């Protein structure tokens, strides 16, 4: 099946619909390629994104196919990568930059917070920042220190930034296309652990930033998760089902803006909720989600909303990582505390 090019927005749409099973890494690569083809203003750059194709191969083949003009290596300098992207966006381009690992993005933090997030506002809309900052995100890959942090709270806390994280190849494709098409700056967090997970991708499906996704229907309890925590939630839901509990899973997907409507409706329908994320829980996105659910759903709740998060410690070394990361048992234990006896 083919969609006529006339019916397609050149920034967001794909000229041809294709459906194929691929890894999240391949879906992201495809999204970048399709965006480069669809819009001459899109450029991809960062460290190692050229000949190497990125340390996770997300930009594999882009330089070979589209040339150095569209995908290129920069000097090793994160602030330089983001700061020059700001200048390019000021001059009408749509840069998509890769910052290799969560903690390596921190030298660019000033540029992200002081300029990427604020320029649209400072100029009263005169200069929008249509740029995307891709950051491989989270742990679970046995990486050594500085390679597995979860920095989403820093970005989500910053007004002006859109923060999204996909958990499926389909969302990886659709959300990245939407992020590149967005007039607002997007921090795009790619769960490293899921780069090699596979799923069906339909290139004609477009995503709306700011919307959560019901990943699994259920009636007893709602698990709220994003990124690598979503497959964990699905696994926990399956395990709980075998114990007779009907578990709903919501993939929050968009950390900022947040889809209160979907999340509120979901939790109201079950009356119980657990938020799952691997970042340290203190002052976290998980805390924010928990607070929002309490504010909006209090009278519908059968039990306090629980969080299952990473501990408030620096990300664990590889051999202790399995103790740090939320797992199915920890999620099931949390579910068990949700005042089931009182209902009986």
């Amino acid at each position, binding site marked *: 099946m083919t969609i006529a090019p006339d019916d397609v927005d050149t920034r967001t749409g794909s000229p041809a619909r294709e459906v194929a099973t691929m890894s999240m890494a391949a879906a992201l690569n495809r999204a970048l390629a399709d965006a480069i083809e669809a819009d001459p203003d899109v450029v991809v750059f960062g460290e190692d994104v050229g000949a190497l194709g990125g340390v996770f191969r997300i930009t594999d083949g882009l330089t070979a196919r589209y040339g150095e003009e569209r995908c290129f290596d920069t000097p090793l300098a994160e602030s330089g990568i983001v700061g020059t992207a700001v*200048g390019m966006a000021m*001059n009408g381009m749509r840069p998509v930059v890769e910052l290799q690992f969560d903690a390596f993005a921190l030298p660019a933090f000033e540029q992200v917070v002081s300029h990427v997030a604020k320029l649209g506002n400072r100029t009263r809309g*005169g200069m929008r920042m249509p740029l995307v900052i891709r950051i491989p995100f989270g742990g679970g890959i046995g990486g050594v220190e500085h390679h597995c942090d979860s920095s989403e709270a820093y970005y989500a806390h910053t007004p002006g930034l859109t923060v999204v994280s996909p958990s499926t190849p389909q969302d990886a494709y659709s959300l990245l296309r939407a992020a590149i098409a967005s007039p607002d700056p997007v921090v795009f967090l790619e769960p490293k652990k899921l780069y090699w997970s596979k799923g069906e991708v339909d290139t004609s499906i477009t995503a709306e930033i700011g919307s959560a996704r019901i990943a699994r229907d259920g009636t007893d309890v709602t698990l709220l998760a994003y990124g690598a925590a979503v497959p964990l939630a699905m696994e926990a839901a399956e395990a709980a089902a075998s114990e007779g509990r009907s578990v709903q899973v919501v993939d929050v997907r968009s950390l900022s803006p947040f889809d209160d409507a979907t999340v509120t409706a979901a939790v109201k329908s079950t009356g119980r909720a657990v938020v799952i994320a691997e970042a340290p829980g203190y002052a976290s996105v998980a805390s924010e989600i928990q607070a929002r659910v309490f504010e909006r759903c209090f009278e519908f709740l059968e039990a306090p909303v629980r969080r299952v998060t990473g501990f408030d410690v620096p990300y664990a070394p590889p051999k202790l990582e399995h103790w740090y990361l939320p797992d199915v048992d920890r999620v099931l234990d949390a579910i068990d505390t949700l005042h089931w006896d009182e209902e009986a």
Partner: protein
Amino acid sequence: MLHTEMLPRDTAVRLIDENGERVIDEHYALPDTDTLLRAYRGLVEGRRINDQAGALVRQGRLAVYPSSHGQEACQVGASLVLGESDWLFPTYRDSVAVISRGVEPADAMVLLKGDWHSGYDVRAHRVAPQATPLATQLLHAVGFAQAAKHRGEDTVVLALCGDGATSEGDFHEAMNFAAVFHVPVVFFVQNNEFAISVPLSRQTAAPSLAHKAIGYGMPGQRVDGNDVAAVLAVLGEAVDRARTGGGPSLIEAHTYRMQAHTNADDDTRYRERDEVQAWIARDPLLRLRAHLTETGVLDAEAEERFAAGAEEIAAAMRTALNTDADLDPEDLFRFVTDTRSPQLEEQWQLLRGEIERSQLAETESAHTGGAR
């Protein structure tokens, strides 16, 4: 380019000395008379703008003003070397350069007045918002120039910063990116000897700030920042080189901040009055006036005309800044993102309710003669 050709001179380029006498330079030509007259007019206006802004701070009309008094030759030079398609990336101290580029003085003061974070149409004047964090805008300038090169546009980007900014990491990254990607950008450091209270000797151990250029593989040059003729010649050459594909360069102007960092600063704590006094003799305005008068270019009529023009600008500033802008609180939410999120809409509705209640209370208070 040979690496020795990238090195700046041992002494700053100067074309008109402190007495207004012409200095013959084997490489740099004195700008033509018309250009010098335009520059002089710019200096007169720039000095008046600085003085007026200082007065407006004392009157409480400006929250703060970082004066460029004494640095007007750099400010005016930076504006005059740019063509129509070029862009200026200024800092908070560069209001005179911004105004010299055509921005209305009152619009350039919006940031300092406290109405908003930037007050002018950046695209209409090709002037980026005045940057407050140090050196961060140099990277924006590089990216902007990189995009211009990518699209084949005839745009040179002139990025301004001070001596303090050269210590920042972003300064290094901007120089390096600009040189590696060979983009049409000129970095112009106004070395005014102090970063608030910290002297140049604490910023660098290099022979000069312009010497840093060679480490990145671009030419550096030093210029007498109080000699507008030299600033125009040196910056002009750098802009021409950038425009014709010669890549970036770094120009360091040697100048002096005659006043405190801002009104909030007490410069008697960190520098001697004698030092400040000594720089009065090197004043950029008096120097050019002496030169133009001696050479018969500037007469009393032109002097009066320029002074009257500067007074008009000052009067317009006073009028504009003595008027309170009609600020709309919804603007707090309007520009954060292109699409307003449900969260921001909810917060705006909350604020709108508060505003309506306070207006109602004011009305009631008026009806009851203030009794509650």
